[in-house]
């Protein structure tokens, strides 16, 4: 306890507010008088927010279509049951109709149900170092990737791990059945991933002047993949390798077993899609590759517009409204109780 001061009262403690525990303090009392105004205030705030959010959500539109066995896809569904048919291509078409035009940006998602991307072992089964373009990891993937680190030939897999291996490999073409004939709905298939993912987290191994296939020389493709990683996007050479947008989107593991992932965004440069999707009939041509049968999964496509706080989700506004009502109810109860019984408490104080 510091230096010993000389003098007869050397051990006398300091008379400071802190040491004597007399710091100025605000001590709120949780009694009706203090709490009730707060309750009413909170109820009001939540009410207002809830109404506002509800109105906002009402303005969004969403369309979901489960295509697992819909339309002509039942054939493909059956086909994909059998693993031996994995190499055979299968495509089908589903039809959907939009009653009311989708205003603004329209987002095209594919959805999976009952697919547990959040399993611990599954999630861990990836090598971020490989994806960021480290050459060492390209050739010798991390142990996290086990057993998806080497293919049958003993070549290191790129990208390794279960996540990449199980990539969703259906592809969609959305057609608008306009009165004037079917129009291909243009979808932006790039820029659907996070900027930081595309530019920082995922890099192809530095290749100098080498082409991608040369860079990935000596690596094998994942077990379930039909195409090697450098050939994911046949249309855009810069969208290949680890920086393929679909791969990046897939690699961001969904939080829940039922999830959707962005497939594309409506390109609104040309008519008739300048204002969004016009009402009418649409068909989706699906290249049906992803088997879901054996885990009782479902696949769907989702078309939706977004608000400033997310998709068409009524939960949040309702939660606000319910909470507000609860607070109000409690506040009223407390008020009543206070008026009726609280008198004694006040008497006591006086």
């Amino acid at each position, binding site marked *: 306890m510091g230096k010993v001061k000389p003098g007869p009262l050397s051990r006398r403690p300091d*008379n400071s507010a802190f040491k004597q525990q007399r710091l100025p303090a605000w001590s709120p009392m949780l009694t009706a008088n203090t709490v009730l105004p707060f309750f009413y205030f909170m109820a009001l705030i939540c009410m207002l927010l809830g109404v506002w959010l509800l109105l906002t959500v009402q303005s969004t539109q969403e369309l979901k279509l489960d295509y697992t066995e819909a339309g002509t896809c039942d054939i493909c569904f059956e086909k994909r049951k059998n693993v031996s048919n994995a190499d055979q291509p299968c495509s089908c078409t589903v039809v959907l109709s939009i009653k009311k035009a989708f205003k603004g940006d329209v987002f095209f998602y594919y959805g999976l149900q009952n697919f547990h991307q959040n399993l611990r072992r*599954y999630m861990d089964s990836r090598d971020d170092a490989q994806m960021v373009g480290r050459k060492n990891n390209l050739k010798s993937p991390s142990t996290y990737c086990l057993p998806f680190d080497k293919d049958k030939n003993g070549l290191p897999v790129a990208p390794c791990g279960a996540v990449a291996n199980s990539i969703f490999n259906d592809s969609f073409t959305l057609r608008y059945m306009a009165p004037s004939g079917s129009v291909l709905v243009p979808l932006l298939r790039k820029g659907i991933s996070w900027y930081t993912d595309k530019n920082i987290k995922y890099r192809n191994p530095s290749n100098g002047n080498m082409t991608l296939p040369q860079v990935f020389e000596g690596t094998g493709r994942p077990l379930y993949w039909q195409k090697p990683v450098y050939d994911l996007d046949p249309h855009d050479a810069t969208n290949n390798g680890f920086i393929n947008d679909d791969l990046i989107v897939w690699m961001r593991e969904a939080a829940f077993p039922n999830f959707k992932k962005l497939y594309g965004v409506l390109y609104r440069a040309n008519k008739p899609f300048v204002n969004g999707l016009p009402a009418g009939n649409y068909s989706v041509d699906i290249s049906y590759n992803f088997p879901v049968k054996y885990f009782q999964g479902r696949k769907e496509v989702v078309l939706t517009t977004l608000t400033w706080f997310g998709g068409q989700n009524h939960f949040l506004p309702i939660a606000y409204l319910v909470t507000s009502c609860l607070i109000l109810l409690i506040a009223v109860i407390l008020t009543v109780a206070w008026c009726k019984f609280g008198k004694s408490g006040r008497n006591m104080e006086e």
Partner: protein
Amino acid sequence: MARDSEEDPKAAKRQRKRKQKENKTRTVHANILYDHAKGEENPNRHYANNKIKTTKYTVLSFLPKNLFEQFHRFANVYFVFIALLNFVPVVNAFQPELALAPVVFILSVTAIKDLWEDYRRHRSDNEINHMDCLVYCRVERRYVEKFWKEVRVGDFIRLRCNEILPADVLLLSSSDPDRLCHIETATLDGETNLKQRQVVRSFLDLDCDFDPLKYNGIIECEKPNNDLNRFRGYIVHRSGRRDALYKENLLLRGCTIRNTEDAVGIIIYAGHETKAMLNNNGPRYKRSKLERQMNVDVFWCVIILLVMCLFTAVGHGLWMFQYGDKRPVFDVLSPEGTDLSPVMSAIYLFLTMIIVFQVLIPISLFVSIEIVKICQVFFIHQDLDLYDEETDSNLQCRALNITEDLGQMQYIFSDKTGTLTENKMVFRRCTVAGVEYSHDANAKRLAMYQEMDSEEEECPSRGGTLPRRDSVGSHQSAKVVLRSQSTKSHRRTGSRAEAKRASILSKHTAFSSPMEKDITPDPQLLDKVNECGSQMDFMRFHSQPMSQLPSDLADVLDFFVALTICNTVVVSSPNQPRQKQQLLQPGHQPLLHPRLLSVLSSPSAESTLTKLDEEQNLQQAFSPVPPQYDGRPLSAAEGELRYEAESPDEAALVYAARAYKCSLVRMRFELKSPVKTIEDFIKRFTPSRLTSGSNSSSSSSLVTNRSFTRGCSSVLSSPSAESTLTKLDEEQNLQQAFSPVPPQYDGRPLSAVEGELRYEAESPDEAALVYAARAYKCSLVGRLPDQVTVELPHLGKLSFELLHTLGFDSTRKRMSVVVRHPLTDQITVYTKGADSAIMELIRPPDTGNSKGKRHKKILSRTQHFLNLYAADGLRTLCIAKKVLSKEQYACWLQRHLEAETAIQGREELLFESALRLETNLQLLGATGIEDRLQDGVPETIASLRQAGLQIWVLTGDKQETAVNIAYACKLLDPEEEILTLNADSQEACAVLLEESLHYIQAKFLCSSSEHTTTKSYHSNVSPFGIYTPPPPPSSCPPAPPAVHQLGLVIDGRTLAYALDRSLEDKFLAVAQSCRSVLCCRSTPLQKSMVVKLVRNKLKVMTLAIGDGANDVSMIQVADVGVGISGQEGMQAVMASDFALPRFRYLQKLLLVHGHWCYSRLANMILYFFYKNAMFVALIFWYQFYCGFSGSSMIDQWYLIFFNLMFSAFPQLITGTLDKDVSAETLQQLPQLYTNGQNSEEYKPYMFWMNMIDAFYQSLVCFFIPYFAYADSDVDLFTWGTPITSLALFTILVHLGIETKTWTRMNWLCISFSVSLFFTVALCYNAYCPTCFSPSNPYWSMQRLLQDPLFYLLCVITPAAALLPRYFYRACQGTLFPSPVQVGRQLDKLPAETRRNILSLSGVKMGLPLGPKPHFLSLGKTSFKGCNKKQQQQQQQRRGLQTDSDKELPSADKDTLPYTKDAAPPASKDCLDQTLDASSWITSTPLLSPSDGVQFPPDGDSFCVKYSRGSEDRLKSDQSS
């Protein structure tokens, strides 16, 4: 115990052999006989050397040893186990290195703390090891400086004044003429008085310097042990002679040499084998009640954890099972590529989940609790209100981990003496030869102190304190002048406060405030003393035999002689201010004046001393007296003066220092050369006289006869000292010496000089008696082991040859001295002791002659006065004497010497020897000493009692004294009945207890309906069972049942019976229903047995408070032991958990700090459980969405550091600073203390409520974000991060709800926590895209902060999560506020209003606080005792005496104890009026008047006294 172990197997064998041989004893040879201290041949080489090492670790052993120690704590093992589990690939949940982080952090924090402590120990060890001392070196044939650590057993060591002893040393030589060495043992036992140690008997006669080379003895002594008060052994000389060694020969390590220039000894025990080191125990470790409770809940947490893990494991197994053989793509196979069976993966998952859920067992809880407790201890230390200015001491917390127990006490066991009272004994009255001297003037003086005290409080800046202060510190010549002033002004300003101040200044001299010192003599007695003195003087002058003195006068004289000499008081001179001890730092060895030293230390005193008195020396010393004393190196002056203190018969003439010293030495030699034949006879037997033979030869030229000596000494003391001194051939020197002095000398009254003598007594009542005797001019001026010098009026100085001192012990309860009376030449035994002990030993008067009749009369009258004194609450002591004939003495001496030299069973033999001597005494008189109540004791007791604490007083004092003190301190209320239990036998005790039970039952069964309707006690009481409390109504605490308006008084003997296994239940049942219990005449063992009984049987929290060694066992047994760092040394403090300077501080310690500590810690622990459960439950809910696979949406970093960093600090601040009620209110409303007693802040159900709340909150925190993000493309960590943040917010707001006071620190800390979380998260998420695999939350926090949804969630989630709790708190605060909340509401009111409310009455406060019956019943007490402050102050002013006078009717004249009914004056309506005597008599058929039950004389006041047995002899414990 670093013993040098030789590699040589032969040596080892020898060592083993030796060990066998020395099983019982240790043999010490002198080292100088052998070449090297460690040499092969040295028989001492196996003994520990003097290097001490209190450190636990060395550089190498630190890591393993510290880790090993830390792993003794189960929690640490658990956490390490979990961290290691992470390294198993199959089950790992986190990055293994990261998972190690918290454990490593916790371990290293503790390790660093340990390391720091150890380093400090190492440094202090080093400092001690490198202190210097003088050790004899064989080669150089002189003493050389050596470090302490180089000292070895068998070394000869030379000790100079003020040196600290490096080891346990056997004293072989001392420069003191009496071969004494004075030591101060304050560091060992805290006693500040000097103790005398004696040179080993066979070295007593060495009149020349001790020469180590000539030493040839071999010492056999005990093995090292920790008993400070025992040392046995013998020394064998080459001649074959054996001499016994006693503890008087042993100087213990750590003591300080005082008053002795030079001493030489041989080291017996060194280093860790010294008694001081063996007594050094580590701090106590206790586990508090709260912690025990907490551990139960930790256990529950473990169970919850296992259940959760099991649940997920089974869930995972089933989940796996549902997919059957076909594995989905997302189900990753084992690394080997093989399938895991569902069962196997479930088992693996179980382990994984333990890792994931580990946070549920809060790793930081234990660390946090420790931190909070340290802070609490710090604040308690810092409390200004617990600081005592008088002694400059504040509260010490010696046990760091039971602060919160202070808030949960239910029973207080208090010592009386020194705890409730000041243990500052003030002489009040005495009776001599059957005549009482009431000392009214003295009483008035004492009353004046008190009045002054209260006046002083009103105007503290009163003048007149300065001269006194000066007078203490300044030189004597100045003092002479000042003295007259100060004695005058003393009356005016000598208040108690000033007395305190004075005692601060003379801090080291105990028991010497003016209040105790200045006793106004009773004029009547003073006359008698004077008369007696003059007669004696006359008779001596005419050489008439002394026996012709009238017997009453002789008794008076003997009485005062006994008071003066029958003690162990040491006289010290004021000119040797003990404060100078501060100079005594190592390296500050006082520079003794070299010449002086050489002169003084040379034993051939004569020649040297004459040389010493050469002119220049004296001139140097004396001509400029005052400046010299101030300006000169203090040590030199000190050295001189100390010498004089040693021979205090001359000390009155202190200032003539050196000249006197010379004469003085010679005088001593003369004294030691008696010529009478009988004395030779005695000499042969008296051990202390063995030296005189050789002395007489060496100083033959100075042989004179004893009568001359006596005359000489008495003449010496008279002012005209020169005549005697001329005989000592030093005229011219003396003239020189005196020339500057005489004017002062002549003008000075003798008493003034003597007044400056200080008495250092082992117990304060001894000092009180000596001071009392001094008031009658019978002053003790010097004490030596073989001689006491007393100054008597008209007779001058008389030297009593002290033949034996039979010290005080608690069994005999008396002490005796055997002296040769210088006037009558008779061998006289003076005995002083407790009245019970003495009265039994008084010679039964033979009724035949007139003398016998007179004795009988004296006896009965004294007994009567003794009873009176006791009734006044005075401590009584009887003084008796006995004259031995020479034959009797010789006979006794023979056997006594045998006892003394016995090695086996010496104590018992000595005890028996003492018993043989102390018989057939002649009663001289008795004294009454007042032990003043400490300030504020009644108020403290009243408020502690209001706080629901049961207060028991356990004292060694006798019943009447104790009862009266109890009344004075409001422990017993005059309005309440007193049950007094005195039984003679086991059966009687059983019957008494039975009767009391019936009585209580009957009486209060009737009245219970009147007291309060909610109580329904005693219907279920069986005679043998403890009261089982009726099921408490709603908020009624399960407190001890029905405390009535009853007091229980029980004496030691009855207590012994009552504590018997067969009766203890009954005793407890009776005691429990009494409001206060007073156990008198209880032994230390009984005290601890009572505490143990109550603690174990009633399962209550007990606090024991005491100040003396006799309270140690009680303090150790109780849950919390409190020591009063008062007058009686440090033993109680050493044993205690908390040391208080005063009893009254207990109030704030318990009511405020105890309450705070308890409520803070309880709330913090609950919060901890809540926090962890809430956090872990989030992950648990997620398992339902991830196939029970053990993945978590919360990033591993957040998971691991959440507890450790992000949410750790606010609760620490709250746990340290939160105040539910202000200190003022807590003290004014002691009822709030019941909060802690009933553990209302932390009940078992609260844990579960908190768990439920935690689960609810986590549900909200989980599912609101879940639904908000459901059906979106959110990824795991983008979703998990907001949940973490929300959980953090919720947890912090939760803490906010629970926080009662918000200081800046709270705000700061909460904002720090939030910002820390976000800063860490942002950095972590931006730092590196690949570093923290497998989780990789790159940039997710940054994205999150851009997401409006996150902010929307931030509003709704905490609001929804905390709604129920907030609502509950609001409801509770509004509708059914707990007492504590009412207290808080009071805090909010302006101070004025609050005071009004509080002063209105306690009853009104109590009413709405809940249906707590004892609030009601206590309300009345508080009305009287506490709330009416003015009344209280008046009472305080009136003081103890008036209090007791008023409350006790004047006693009747009967001499038998207990017949006097100490019934209070008519009590008021507090007791049941409807109850008439017959109703309870009929209900207790066992009672009959002959059984000793006394009915109250009138129906109004009840006082029941049970007493059994014909002779209830009172035994009082003299020093309780």
